[in-house]
């Protein structure tokens, strides 16, 4: 019974230390609550619509004008200018007024009547992949549509609708974007951002509280009190505080953030919480382990914040895991976020069950176990050191 009350007292002291430091309060309470909202706000529009483009219409024929009209009607781009030459279009690009331009050749009609293939060029600004994607997609769709009409006009005059359909498109197809129906940016990036926020702020919080103790007690990892004499009690006491706070934060992200911004959330809440248990434990134990290197509170901001970016890429969500070199995959295995991001995407966006994320779930438990032992070892050594000093 005394051990349980010891754990409770350790937890209480940890909580008090947290609340006393406004830096920790910021990272542990404010950031998990508001950062996901900020990010969702940034990516809320999901896709790029109406990218401004120019048309360099060398042909100036009804057909080329039809192409321009149809291009303007696509959701992806918007025709904002008609240019007389490529140089003029380039100038508009320099001024940042357009992000792509479409060049229709002078001899469009002659080429077509001669029975040769005409080529329309799409010049896209590579400042962003999405401009390129939008412009090319729109132009391709328009050309496919026009091609159908041209074919009918030339070869199938007098055919029935059904005959036309067979002739222009003998095989039809459907594209189904699963789990992210709008192919949107928020739906794809938010899950990874939310999982990383949990891990990074947890590590920052633990590191800052740990560093604070070292500062107060001359570089010792633990306060010189009798209470802190059993590594197991210390780890459990500290973990209890963070776990309770973060399970609430995790639930908040799954429910409130997903709901407000209409992100895909077809997973079950129960599955999600079960999955979060090893993740949050793993992050906490890792935070305790890493805090053994932190001697000044502020150091952990310098050390942990910039790691968020590589961790995002290593998780395989933005850069496909299949293309990540083996070495970095191994480095990724050290961090719970790698598995949590992948597992969360599947539970949240793809409706996977706990069995379907089995490998990730097990990996998270293994990580939690390893970091648990490491954090026990860290406190065991610190306690022994303190005893030696006393003697």
């Amino acid at each position, binding site marked *: 019974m005394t051990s349980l009350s010891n754990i409770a007292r350790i937890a209480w002291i940890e909580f008090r230390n947290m609340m006393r430091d406004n*830096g920790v309060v910021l990272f542990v309470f404010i950031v998990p609550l508001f950062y996901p909202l900020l990010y969702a706000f940034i990516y809320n529009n999901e896709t790029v619509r109406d990218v401004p483009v120019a048309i360099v219409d060398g042909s100036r024929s009804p057909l080329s004008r039809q192409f321009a009209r149809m291009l303007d009607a696509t959701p992806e781009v918007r025709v904002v200018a008609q240019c007389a030459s490529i140089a003029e279009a380039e100038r508009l690009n320099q001024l940042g007024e357009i992000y792509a331009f479409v060049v229709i050749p002078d001899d469009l009609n002659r080429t077509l009547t001669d029975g040769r*293939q005409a080529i329309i060029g*799409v010049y896209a600004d590579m400042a962003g992949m*999405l401009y390129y994607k939008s412009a090319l997609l729109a132009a391709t769709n328009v050309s496919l549509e026009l091609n159908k009409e041209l074919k009918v006009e030339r070869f199938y005059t007098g055919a029935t609708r059904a005959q036309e359909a067979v002739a222009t498109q003998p095989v039809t197809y*459907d594209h189904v974007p*699963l789990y992210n129906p709008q192919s949107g940016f928020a739906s794809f990036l938010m899950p990874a951002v939310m999982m990383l926020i949990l891990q990074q702020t947890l590590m920052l919080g633990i590191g800052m509280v740990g560093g604070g103790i070292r500062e107060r007690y001359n570089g010792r990892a633990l306060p010189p009190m009798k209470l802190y004499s059993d590594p197991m009690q210390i780890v459990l006491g500290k973990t209890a505080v963070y776990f309770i706070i973060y399970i609430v934060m995790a639930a908040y992200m799954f429910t409130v953030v997903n709901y407000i911004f209409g992100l895909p959330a077809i997973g079950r809440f129960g599955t999600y919480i079960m999955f979060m248990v090893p993740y949050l434990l793993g992050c906490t134990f890792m935070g305790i382990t890493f805090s053994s290197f932190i001697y000044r509170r*502020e150091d952990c901001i310098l050390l942990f914040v910039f790691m968020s*970016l590589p961790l995002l890429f290593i998780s395989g969500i933005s850069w496909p895991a299949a293309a990540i070199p083996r070495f970095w995959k191994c480095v990724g295995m050290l961090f719970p976020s790698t598995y949590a991001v992948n597992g969360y*995407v599947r539970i949240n966006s793809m409706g996977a069950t706990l069995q379907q994320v089995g490998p990730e779930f097990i990996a998270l438990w293994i990580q939690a176990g390893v970091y648990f032992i490491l954090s026990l070892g860290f406190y065991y050594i610190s306690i022994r050191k303190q005893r030696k000093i006393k003697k």
Partner: protein
Amino acid sequence: MAMKRKNVFLRLWQLWMRELKFFSTRPLMLVVMFIAPVTLLVFFLSLMSAGLPTDLPAGIVDEDNTSTTRTLVRTLDAMENTDLRYSYSSLTEAREAMQRGEIYAFFHIPAGTTERALSQRRPKIGFYTNDAYFIAGSLLMRDMRTASEMIGMGISRQTFLAKGMADDAAMAAVRPIAIEAHPLGNPVLDYSVYLSNIIVPGCILLLVLIFTPYTIGLEWKRGKQRRVYNRLAGQSSTVFLAGKLVPQALLFSLMMLLCDVVFYKYLHFPCKCGMWMMFFIGVLCILAAQCFGVFVYGLLQGNMRFAMSVCSLWGIVSFSISGLSFPTMAMDPILQAAAWLFPLRHYYLLYVNQALHGYPLLFAWPSIVALLCFLLLPLLTLPLYRHAFRHAKYKP
């Protein structure tokens, strides 16, 4: 008068030497100013060394299984980004494989496709991409769509050939208008060109942003702020800040130079303005980030941890708001305006203007002016620093 000026230089020299000595005693400084930038550079370049991810795992559900559909499967497999690694007997099985994360997309050919096509009954095929993984999903979508178009065109072409048309003419009849893509400045669609050379300098700017309030704040933390201010800096906040920040600016600039040399000299990333121009832009952004850090620290009256937190949150958001992956023009107007307040946004715009397109710098004047405005920010906080040196104490 001459005496006084000499004094200033002497003071700065003393402060600089003091900083360098300080850097050499703390391993953390080595980590932040050398190990972290180099590691990040190696990380992003090796991660995206393929340029464009090739051979992404995909699956096929071929319920028809005729020689025609097998040709389609081979065509698809031969495409650059697609690796049709797995074959499934049903849609459910393929979907489950996708949920397990084995494949990013699958292609579905229903039974009777070939027969329907031959008898002119317009069969329908389908492909399913997992767009929860955006890049992989889009790349596979592109390949699968092209393959789907090609089947139809193949059949039409056969018809025209049978009517006695020549090869070229049949192709032109099938596809009178073709689209040709010209990605300006990055012809091979290399993701590394598009991401690494903004993200790595961006990480350096992030480190600068956090490091500035950290190093300034350490004076307060160690309780030496009065001594430094009165004795070394001659009661001048300007001298103190210059003495503090110039050495780190130099060291961070060296790291920026390393990045530029690797990107533009060694890997030959497109750079129409020459490497030194990019270096100049990088240094300007480092100074802007430092000045922002000085501003925040002064504004918060020496609350070191809070200033560092604000700077780190600011720095992390800048990767998203700068528009390098999701364009700023697609964001809310409020965010479009807010993007001006992030040095990385200007670095990105200047990179596009200078390195990618090689346009005259004049066209990017708003970003240059914005960065120069950042450099003026510390002036606003000089009186606050004077106050902080006299009264503020480190808050434990």
